[in-house]
């Protein structure tokens, strides 16, 4: 190294000598990519790991001090959830209104998106934009009118109450996503089908829907996720019979003290359906976030 220092600094940069010197002295190689990826995964997975970790511990262990993994693995928390009706019915209720909502949203959004994609009508562009205004107001704004309305017509505390309320947010979103996918299908395909003799409903189901299948999947996923994680409307519009799991979790806290392990187990089970759905549509998610306009 001393030999190269004698050479002018500007030449040092281009000469091969320092490179050769570096080669001669072996140093432990640190792969930057691996470090970054490890840190990324660490930060990403830490909360989830901690949730799973807690769900497998006893309450004594959770409250007694910091342990990185369960000293004494227990599945009692999960057993409680799957055997206690007040717990598992929360999941059933949630899944019921989420599925109703997804089906409703998609079946209303499909014809609406087709109209926005294919026809020019009075105010189409404005309508299309203003669909999104329903997403601009916080859910709390709508909680009171919904509560009052549903109480009046006897929908309160049914899965339909929550499912319909969530349509307010999910139908516009589904219309936006589906419109993007539909506009990617050439109009000539519609016309060719008409020329071939397809009636409109038959064309729509047999030819058109397979072409936008991934769009329907992505839209269904978004409806599912929004409805699944939404808490405020779901809790306001239900009391006993249709109580969603998230409400069960928050209400149980104060009643039975802090059952940390049980809550953590419920949390883990809440993540599972979303993770499953994401797995199925993982290849289309990016396109869905771009509303089909990729």
């Amino acid at each position, binding site marked *: 190294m001393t030999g190269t220092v004698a050479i002018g600094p500007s030449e040092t940069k281009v000469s091969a000598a320092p490179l050769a010197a570096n080669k001669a002295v072996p140093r432990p190689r640190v792969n930057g990519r691996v470090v970054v990826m490890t840190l990324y995964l660490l930060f990403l997975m830490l909360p989830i790991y901690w949730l799973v970790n807690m769900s497998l511990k006893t309450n004594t262990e959770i409250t007694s001090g910091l342990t990185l993994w369960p000293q004494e693995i227990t599945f009692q928390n999960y057993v409680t959830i799957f055997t206690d009706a007040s717990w598992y019915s929360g999941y059933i209720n949630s899944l019921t209104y989420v599925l109703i909502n997804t089906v409703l949203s998609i079946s209303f959004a499909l014809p609406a998106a087709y109209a926005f994609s294919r026809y020019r009508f009075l105010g189409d562009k404005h309508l299309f934009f203003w669909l999104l205004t329903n997403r601009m107001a916080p859910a709390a704004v709508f909680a009171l009118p919904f509560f009052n309305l549903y109480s009046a017509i006897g929908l309160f505390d049914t899965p339909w109450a929550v499912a319909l309320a969530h349509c307010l947010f999910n139908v516009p979103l589904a219309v936006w996503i589906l419109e993007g996918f539909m506009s990617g299908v*050439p109009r*000539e*395909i519609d*016309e*060719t*089908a*008409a*020329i*071939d*003799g*397809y*009636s409109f409903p*038959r064309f729509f189901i047999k*030819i058109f829907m*397979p*072409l936008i299948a991934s769009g329907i999947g992505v839209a269904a996923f978004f409806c599912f996720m929004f409805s699944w994680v939404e808490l405020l409307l779901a809790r306001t519009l239900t009391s006993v019979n249709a109580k969603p799991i998230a409400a069960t979790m928050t209400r149980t806290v104060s009643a039975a003290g802090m059952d940390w392990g049980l809550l953590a187990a419920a949390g883990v089970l809440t993540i599972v359906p979303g993770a499953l759905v994401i797995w199925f549509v993982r290849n289309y998610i990016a396109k869905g976030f771009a509303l089909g306009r990729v």
Partner: protein
Amino acid sequence: MTLVLDNVCRKVGAETHIRDISLTLERGSLNVLLGATLAGKTSLMRLMAGLDAPSSGRILVDGQDVTGWPVQRRSVAMVYQQFINYPSLTVYENIASPLRVARLPSAEVDARVQDAARLLKLEPYLDRKPLNLSGGQQQRTAIARALVKRADLVLLDEPLANLDYKLREELREELPRVFAASGAIFVYATTEPSEALLLGGNTVTLFEGRATQFGRTPLVYRHPQDLVTAQVFSDPPLNTLRASKTGSTVALSTGGQGPAAGAFAAAPDGEYTVGFRAHHLGFESTGRDEIAIPVKVSLAEITGSESYVHLSAGEHRFVALVAGVTRLQPGAAVTAYLDPRHVFLFDERGRLAAADLAKAA
């Protein structure tokens, strides 16, 4: 069947796409719609198919008014310029699709699909999805679907425009043959005059939504009844200049003059717009009744067997098509010779005033 368009117009918003077109297309005839982009070829086809309704006028099939009929009720097949197939179905199901809708027995469906596939050389690909085929094969699939339907009206909207030229030549030969047996009215839209001439049949020249002329293709080519038709039906573009005839001489607006022979012979004295095609302008004098035009060479495009020589004379621009490789250099001042028997004379309203009908074009 006979398809009659009776004073058909189509307006979209403030724009007029089709302006008062009346046509009668006979059973078993081949009809070419010739016009530049935006001339109204596709609009006219969509009216014929029933995909759009005319703003005014009637469409009659065998004397029956079908103007408001949905396209499903009509016996129509259409092939687009883009390769339009159903991506989710196999080639076989794509071709079979109109037959499946019509609920034909599957033995009949299979026979017709196999026939069409053989005719269009699609047999090895029947199990594939259209998107896994080449462009030519995709378009063949679309054509096969139009063929199996045995529709009374077959519309082909620039079907070969997106194909490479080898495939175009092949398919252009096959298409009329493939459909000839069916006795259908065959309508073919194209932007290229040479394609119209190769196909033959009848030609409708379209310009800005108007049908400027309708007749046998060679007849329209040789005897355009107005300047616009001649321009639509010329590639390279029709050369035009102004000329005035007095007695036995003709004086050109570009300078130069000649004897009032050929088309000029029968025309009364006066001002005319002279139209002539590129291959009638040459650089060698034949010594008989010629009009000499002093010109300057601005560009020579050589295709190999022919040369397109772009010329200027004042503010006029001409193109001359000469055989072989030209030796003319850009900038050279030369004399171009025009045979007055091969020109069209148009009056100030653009109507054909005179032409030597035996020799014109």
